[in-house]
């Protein structure tokens, strides 16, 4: 209770202070505010992780009714993730935003939006009243919009921001529909009403309700085909915002889905299959488009879609486990999904922050223009490399652990299941393997082209490593990436409570989650430690041998060609050329080409643009049809005052004649009611 007052007080004080401070202090106040609130919220939820759910009722207003606050283990898990990413992100922003220190007012607005975004995310995790939930959701959406359009003098940024704003409002409309549906039927805005409503009704009603919520939350989470805002918003936003958005904001969609799973009582097997299908499509589609992107942050944005797919696979298998009463499967699935939420938050924010460093140093994010940055920015390169290996799901880092759990889930599901389910398993395995392989292709490209080789373009300004303090939070994130990879047990112990809550294991029927997970992961850790030891041994041998032999440097072997220049290097597009030829049916590439002609060829150029096929069919074509339709009525808006007065008169007349047709209108209304 007190903690909530303190939490709100800190937000208000921070927001009030912001306009009165100098630019340098604004950032520090925001950071302090977020750290203080992180301490408050963490201390609030820590008991929940130990199994003691914190629950009480706040006196709400006349409209909302009583507002129930509930911090269970699931909200605790998400709140911890949000806190961690926001603290590191804000610390990073203190230095990243130095580029913009001239824009005082803009920074005030941005800082306020950032604080509000953080607070809204925390509130969303604990509030159990749908009206308050929707208000917090709206605050989150709008503050994220303001945070994204920081560089609003750029048209592309503004477009991306508005695209995001509209889509997140579509999401709100759908969520509102779901909540109002329940409220009409039960008369209560409390989340508990969802449980009571669905348990009293048939499975079909529960499933439909779940689907409504799923679509609403999926827009936020970025499941294909509701992902189209993501690849615009992430590159447009400043790097710390993209990191935070991709790291935790889209996870609130996942949180919503998980919350609904625990609230809605329906056929979990079908729900699981639905989630699994969406996830497989998201995972594959996300990574397939990521590979061909030219913009580093856009590439990372598509990877967020892919990782949401992986998280979804975990949650989907978990639900299937619930539906088939296979508690082992359910625990593995949910544990894998929830752990991947944390893992993805870590490596994706690290990738976005390092991409921000690259942008800060070179002022470009176009992969084709970069190269050889590892010489100028070795620390950034190393951090990017760690995150790249982790996101490809390769040991010894954290991505492998969560993917391993999901794989184990799949192979557990395989035992004792029938033909139809077996086909589902085998395609899920196939999808996860392909996602892993494609992610490796994508990140060898991203790392190799951006950081390795020689520079593809000379910059007119000095390219140098960012300051140590700016790198500090990044090292902190990287530390966790390594620790989760090497000692996953500790984190899975923390996860045991959330998973217990979701799986709801009946007492004494099934082996304890902690013991079982321990059995599953202990040998994996041994193997990972073994790997590290072997790397160390081979490296030691190499050191010993190298000390005795002569080591010289020379130019790269050009296969006999003596004057290679950096323009002849493999580019990002050429690196993935055979891939993009093979996957042509899925990609939508437009080419602009002017070939060299004649004996003395003049300038020639070649450029490709990658479009999103789903976006084209789902968003662009309907919108242009809609615009065409509205365009037919443009004659109404002709700018002549006389016409507008005439419209007014027509409208008043229509109102005036309503009573005359009262009977007919009532009949019509009755007719609609009967439908």
């Amino acid at each position, binding site marked *: 209770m007190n903690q909530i007052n303190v939490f709100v007080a800190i937000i208000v004080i921070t927001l009030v202070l912001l306009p009165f401070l100098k630019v340098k202090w604004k950032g520090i106040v925001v950071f302090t505010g977020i750290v203080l609130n992180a301490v408050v919220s963490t201390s609030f939820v820590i008991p929940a992780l130990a199994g003691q759910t914190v629950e009480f009722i706040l006196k709400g207003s006349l409209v909302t009714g009583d507002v129930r606050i509930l911090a269970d283990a699931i909200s605790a898990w998400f709140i911890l993730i949000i806190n961690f990413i926001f603290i590191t992100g804000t610390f990073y922003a203190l230095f990243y935003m130095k580029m913009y220190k001239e824009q005082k007012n803009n920074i005030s607005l941005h800082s306020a939006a950032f604080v509000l975004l953080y607070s809204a995310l925390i509130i969303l995790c604990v509030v159990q009243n749908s009206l308050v939930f929707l208000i917090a959701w709206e605050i989150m959406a709008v503050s994220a919009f303001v945070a994204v359009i920081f560089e609003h003098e750029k048209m592309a940024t503004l477009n991306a921001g508005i695209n995001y704003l509209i889509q997140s409002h579509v999401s709100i409309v759908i969520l509102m529909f779901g909540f109002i549906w329940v409220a009409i039927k039960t008369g209560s805005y409390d989340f508990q009403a969802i449980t009571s409503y669905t348990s009293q009704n048939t499975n079909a009603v529960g499933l439909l309700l779940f689907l409504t919520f799923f679509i609403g939350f999926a827009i936020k989470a970025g499941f294909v085909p509701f992902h189209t805002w993501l690849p615009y918003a992430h590159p447009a936003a400043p790097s710390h915002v993209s990191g935070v958005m991709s790291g935790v904001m889209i996870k609130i969609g996942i949180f919503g889905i998980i919350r609904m799973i625990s609230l809605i009582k329906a056929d979990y097997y079908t729900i699981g299959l639905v989630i699994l299908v969406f996830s497989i499509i998201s995972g594959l589609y996300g990574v397939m488009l990521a590979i061909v992107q030219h913009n580093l942050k856009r590439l990372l944005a598509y990877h967020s879609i892919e990782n949401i797919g992986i998280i979804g696979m975990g949650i989907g298998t978990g639900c299937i486990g619930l539906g088939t009463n296979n508690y082992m499967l359910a625990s593995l699935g949910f544990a894998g999904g929830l752990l991947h939420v944390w893992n993805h938050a870590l490596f994706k924010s690290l990738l976005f922050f390092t991409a921000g460093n690259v942008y800060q140093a070179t002022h470009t994010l176009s992969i084709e223009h970069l190269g*050889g940055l*590892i*010489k100028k920015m070795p620390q950034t390169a190393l951090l990017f*490399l760690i995150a790249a*290996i982790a996101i*490809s*799901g*390769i*040991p010894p880092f954290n991505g*492998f652990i969560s993917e*391993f759990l999901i*794989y*184990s889930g799949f192979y557990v599901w*395989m*035992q004792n299941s*029938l*033909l139809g389910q077996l086909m589902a398993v*085998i395609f899920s*395995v*196939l999808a996860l*393997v*392909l996602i*892993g*392989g*494609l992610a*490796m*292709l994508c990140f*060898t490209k991203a*790392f*190799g082209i951006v950081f390795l*080789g020689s520079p593809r373009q000379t910059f007119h300004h000095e390219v140098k490593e960012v300051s140590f303090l700016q790198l500090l939070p990044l090292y902190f994130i990287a530390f966790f990436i390594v620790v989760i990879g090497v000692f996953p047990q500790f984190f899975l112990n923390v996860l045991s409570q959330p998973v217990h809550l979701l799986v709801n294991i009946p007492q004494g029927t099934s082996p304890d989650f902690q013991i079982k997970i321990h059995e*599953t992961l202990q040998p*994996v850790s*041994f*193997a990972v430690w*073994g*790997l590290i030891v072997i*790397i160390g*041994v*081979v*490296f030691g041998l*190499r050191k010993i*041998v190298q000390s005795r*032999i*002569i*080591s*010289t440097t*020379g130019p*790269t*072997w*050009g*296969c006999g060609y003596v004057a290679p220049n*950096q323009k*002849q*290097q*493999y580019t990002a597009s050429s*690196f*993935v050329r*055979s891939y993009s030829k*093979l996957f042509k049916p899925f990609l939508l590439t437009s080419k602009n080409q002017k070939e060299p002609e004649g004996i003395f060829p003049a300038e020639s150029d070649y450029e490709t643009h990658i479009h999103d096929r789903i976006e084209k069919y789902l968003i662009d074509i309907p919108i242009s049809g809609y615009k065409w339709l509205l365009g037919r009525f443009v004659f109404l808006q002709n700018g002549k005052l006389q016409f507008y007065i005439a419209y007014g008169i027509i409208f008043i007349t229509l109102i005036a004649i309503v009573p005359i047709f009262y009977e007919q209108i009532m009949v019509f209304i009755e007719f609609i009611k009967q439908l």
Partner: protein
Amino acid sequence: MLSLILIIIASTFFTGIIIRVKSLASGRKGPGIFQPLKDVARLFKKGVVYSETTSFVFKIAPTIYLASVVMAMLVVPFGQSKGLISFNGDFIFFAYVLALGKFFSIISALDTGSSFEGMGASREALYSMFAEPAFFILMGSLALLTGYTSFHEMFAALHIGSYITYALGILGTFVLMMVAMIENSRMPIDDPKTHLELTMVHEVMILDNSGFDLGLIFTAGYLKFAIYGALVVNLFIGLFPYQFAIPMFFVIQVVLATGVGLIESFMARFRMSHNAQFIFVLTSVSLLIFFGALLIIGKFV
């Protein structure tokens, strides 16, 4: 532990036999079977030349590549005796730890800034991506058939039920050997002895490696062959007693090496642009194995 020793022994002669068979097939006497080992020993003593373009990635990559292969070797069992590390889902670890090595060999090729090496890296990344699903479905089918998820238990329980499983073993051999060919960049996917850098995959990626590092990469290559050979052996030996199993191990390894040598002597490399499709076909062969497994356990009702 036994498997570890056997694999190391097999790796000493596997590549030598391939080279010897190729020489004999082309009418030459050829080098001794242990020539590859001598090559590596010589490389270990030589000095190294690093390209000016490269960074620390290029220097650590061969180390990690070899370490990943060694680690993968530790989880491979031999009949009744477990691998040094054996756990549920160890084949997932096996595939992913090899991916670590591949990741580093790809970025180390890109580190040189050479267009040839970039080309090789691009192909390697694409091919290995396509090869992985086949391996996972094969292992999935075995897991389904036996009800276990670790290499050791799966292979041990494979032939307990019926003899039809040997048919699956043969299909599995095909898949594993093709995966081995892709992993080691041999014919028909890649021609290690081609004279043109444009048509190489693996060889072109290591153009700039020299001395000790090159030796590590070669060693890793020899080990990889023996590892996949050992997996193939495991498909057949089941719970045979050691006095039969160990000779069988060497016989199968020699047969496989000879087979690789013969294929390389009498076959042309596939068209580079069609390689990816060809590799993906392996996945459908694995799906055949999966359906075979379904038939055997009677899930096709």
